[in-house]
Structures are given as C-alpha cells and as structure tokens.
C-alpha cells in the first residue's frame, strides 16, 4: 500500500526554531483573542470582531492549547514535535475556510438583495479566525521559503 511519506527529521527539524516562534505566536494570538471573545461572550468586554460568542472564544482557546502544547517538545527538539504546530495550523485553516465560506455566502445574499441580508454589512461576518490563520500560514510559508533557500545553498557564502 502506498503511504504518504515525509522526511521530517531532515527538512523539518531544520525549521524547529521557526516552528517554535510560530507556535508561540499562534498560542499567544489565538489565546489572547479567544480569551477576549470569551469575556465578550459573558458580557464583560466588547467583541473583538462580529457577534460576541463564548463558544467561539473557547474554540480559539483550543487552537491556542494545541500550539502551546508543542512549545516544549519543539524546544527539546523531539522527533515529532512539529505535529502540534502542523495540527494547530490545520485547525486554524479549518476555522478560516468556514468563516470565509460564511462571509462569501453572506455576500451572495446581500448581492441578491435577499430580505435577511438587506441590512448586512461586512463587519457582521468578520471573525478573528479570518485574520489569525493568514498570520500563521504566512509564517509557515516564510519558514518553507527560508528552508528552501538554505537547502539549495542560496543564502550561503
């Protein structure tokens, strides 16, 4: 049976430093915004983006937990430490895709002038997940680019 393979210890281990930075940033960003959303959900503060929702905040805290759980294994350079960062980005990606799908369908409703969307504005469908995932994905893309340039000897004297 053919199975997907990944030479992790070679290529990815070179990126452990970068993944560590990304995990810390991901944990802090999702954690801070998730906490703010939870506080907004119970009515203590104003919402960061869109409607205040306690569960939505808790969901972001779980993503933060996944990133945070990977920090120690990455610092210790354990074999499968990258798993937490990858799953964190994956979860962030799922939330991003869903929020994007909701945003696009809302736009469709507004464009078709359907009754429920007459008073809709872009701000109604904006969610913190829409900003956080591009941040993490950009960091991951930067790491890949740096790794590619290192492995091809582009940056070496």
């Amino acid at each position: 049976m053919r199975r997907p393979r990944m030479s992790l210890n070679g290529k990815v281990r070179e990126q452990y430093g970068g993944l560590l930075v990304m995990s810390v940033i991901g944990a802090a960003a999702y954690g801070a915004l998730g906490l703010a959303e939870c506080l907004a959900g119970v009515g203590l503060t104003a919402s960061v983006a869109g409607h205040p929702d306690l569960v939505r905040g808790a969901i972001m805290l779980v993503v933060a937990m996944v990133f945070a759980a990977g920090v120690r294994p990455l610092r210790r350079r354990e074999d499968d430490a990258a798993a937490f960062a990858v799953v964190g980005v994956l979860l962030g990606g799922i939330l991003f895709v869903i929020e994007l799908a909701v945003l696009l369908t809302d736009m469709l409703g507004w464009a078709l002038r359907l009754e429920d969307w007459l008073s809709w504005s872009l701000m109604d469908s904006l969610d913190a997940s829409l900003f956080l995932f591009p941040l993490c994905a950009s960091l991951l893309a930067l790491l890949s680019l740096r790794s590619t340039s290192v492995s091809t000897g582009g940056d070496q004297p």
Partner: protein
Amino acid sequence: MNKDSVVPVAGTDQEATTGPAGQHDDDESYILPQIVLAEERYRVIGEILEEVYRPGKERWLVSDMLDRVLLHKYLGVPVFLVTMWAMFTFTFEASRVFSALIELFFEWLGTQASLVPVPWLQSLIQQGLIGGVGFILVFVPPIMFMYLSIAVLEDSGYLARAAFVVDRAMMRIGLHGRSFIPLLLGFGCSVPAIMAARTVDAPSNRLTTILVAPLMSCSARLPVYILLAGVFFPAFAGTVVFAMYLLGIVMAVVMALVFKNTLFRGESSPLLMELPTYQRPTVHGVFRHTWDRTLLFLKKAGSYLLVGALVLWCLSYVGPGGLDVPLSESYIALLGHFLAPVFAPLGFSWQIVSALVFGLFAKEVVVESLSIIFSVEGGAAIGAALTGVLTPVSALALMVFVLLYTPCIATIGTTHKETGSWAWTAFSVVYQLVLAYLMALAVVVIGGLLVA
C-alpha cells in the same frame, strides 16, 4: 512497524490488546476471539516486517505525526469538539442563503397556487403541499452541507479517530467500548445505529447501546434545530445546533452510565479498531457520498413526508363540524388541546404539542406540522408565528425535547426487532419520553431563573 499499524485499544492508551480479565463471569482467563485473531494477525505482520523492512531514522509518516495530536490523551477530545463545532457552524451559517432562495421559490409557487379557483384544492396545494413538503425542502441545503462535512471527515480518516478518542473517554468513566461506532451512526439515523449494536459483544452491553443510540441526534432533527435556532438565537444559531448534538452525546453517555450501574452490571470491554492512514478526500468521492445521502432525504420528502403532509392537512381542514372548519375546531386542534395541559409546564402551546405528536412518525414531520398548523408558507411567517407561542427559553426546551424523545416509528420497530422484546421496546419509548420531559423542564426552570 509504524505507529498506526498497531491496533489501538480505547481507554488503554494503545498498550493492551486483550480484554480485561474477568469480563466473562464464568472464566477469568477468557480472551475475546477477535482480540486473539488481531494479535495473531499483527504477530505475523510483525514477523514479515522484521525480515523485509529496515526502518530508517529519517523516515516518518504524516499519519503518525497527526495522530500524535489528534489521538492525544488530553487534546484529542477538545480537537474533536472543535471539528464538530466547525461542522455545524458551516452547516447552518453557509447554507442560509441557499435555503432563502428555495424559500423564495416556494413563496412564488404559493402565489401561483392562489390562482386555483377551487377553495379546498387551493388550500391543499398552498397549505398542505407547499406549506408542508415545500417547507421541508427549504432544509435541503443545511442537510446537504452536513453530509458534505461528514463525507470529508469520513474520507480523510478522521471519523475513525473521533470514534477512538470519544470511546477512550467513555472507557475512562467505566463504560464499555465498541458502542461508540453504533452511536456515531446515530448522527445519520437511529435505525442503522440500533442495528449496528449487533457488533457489541455482551448482551447487556448490546441492550445498553440499543437503549441509548436514539439519544444521538439524527439528521431528521436538524430541520427542527435550524428553524428554532434561526428564529430565536440568530446570532448563535450554529453554536446552538452544535450544543444540541453535544447534549445528545452527553445524555447517551450519562444514560449508559446509569444503565450500567443499575440495570446491567457488567465489565467493560475495549474497542479494538484499525485506524486507516489519513487520505486526502477526493472531490468525486465527497460529492458522491453527499449526493447519495441527500437523494435519500429527497426520496423521503417525496414519499411519506408527502403523505404525512396530506394527512396533516386533512386533519387541519376537517373537524367534528365538517369540512373547512376553522383551525381551532379541527381534529388536529382537538388532539393538541387534549394533550396541552401535560406540556403546559414546558410552555408548549397546543400547536407545538400536536407537532410533537406527529413527530413520532418522523422528526421532519415536526417542522412540517408546524408549518401546516400555522397555515403559513415560508420561514419569516412561521418565525413570527413561533415567537408568538414560544419564548427563547421554551424554544430551547422544545429543541431539547425533540432531541431526546423517541425518534420515530421506524426506530421503535427496529428496537423491537433487535431486542426481541416488547417490554424493552416499551421501556425504551417511555424512558426517552420521561427523560425528554424532565430535561426540557430543567431547561425551563434553569433558563427561567437565569432570565429572571
């Protein structure tokens, strides 16, 4: 040998492959035959691999890497909850605009039907067919989106992990393994979920699974949640629907625990499952699964939901006073008024009570009945009618009641077939009705206190 070729055993952190000692009262050393077979199978695989495969330190599988987190002792369940929440948010939020378009189409069709000169025929088409079946078809997009999400999870290999992770949590609180796979099927329909309980080993465990499987929220209940959540909690509708599905799982676990500690005292047995490697779902596969399941729903709408709509319309059109009586004097109103005092503490009006009674035939009929009873067409109108007879707290209680009371006649029939006993079938129906009533009452009392 890579990690995911090891047979994970729920509740034991992938260490043991044998059942706990003493699971058969008469023989302390009894080991389940399938476990022996699995052990033997992997022993042979291991021997072959030892000869032909030299693992290199630099090689690692993506599946192993993902499983490190997705099957994590503490992170596994939260990640599963995030996935479920994402699924229901997508199901509800992204499908709204398509539902609105279908609704617009049926509104237009209703306008055309008003040109029919014969009053009773016009009423049948407008309130019976368009108001009943047409209104049910408004829920095709969310149902399709849910099947799409399930197909992606299924084809990617995550659903098997979800079953493993939740089963492990169940094992930790002392419940038997193996029953989560049937329970997982309950998200689609309670009938196959009850039938899948055949895979559960001991009779007491099997009976527990049959009794709790209907508590898992089947797809037929989705239209009820979407209608009520959309009307009463529009800003958090996705979260409310997610909460209903979560409550179904929690109640199934709680009731299984209650049965285990009262009616069926027995040992737990581990879930033995082979986890497939993660795959990238194909567009063709996902759409094929989604379309097949949606087609089943459409067939259901075109067959007995149509018949149900005609019967309901007849009952709302006819009364002791003859044909074309006011709704309040129709047979459907008589039935609703007769049972309404029982449901008065829950804040359900006679219209809601009638819909719940007809919901015993199939859960989609609850929405169909409400639409016909209120004699309206389209979500906004039914929404306004619902806000007139329900408060947000009683709407939440209604969702909980719909979640927990007997799913449908087909489920009752299957329960009888699988248990072979009318006594257990009656017990199943009665305990679900009592549980639904008590939980709905709890929602009303606690919700009332919070609102106050």
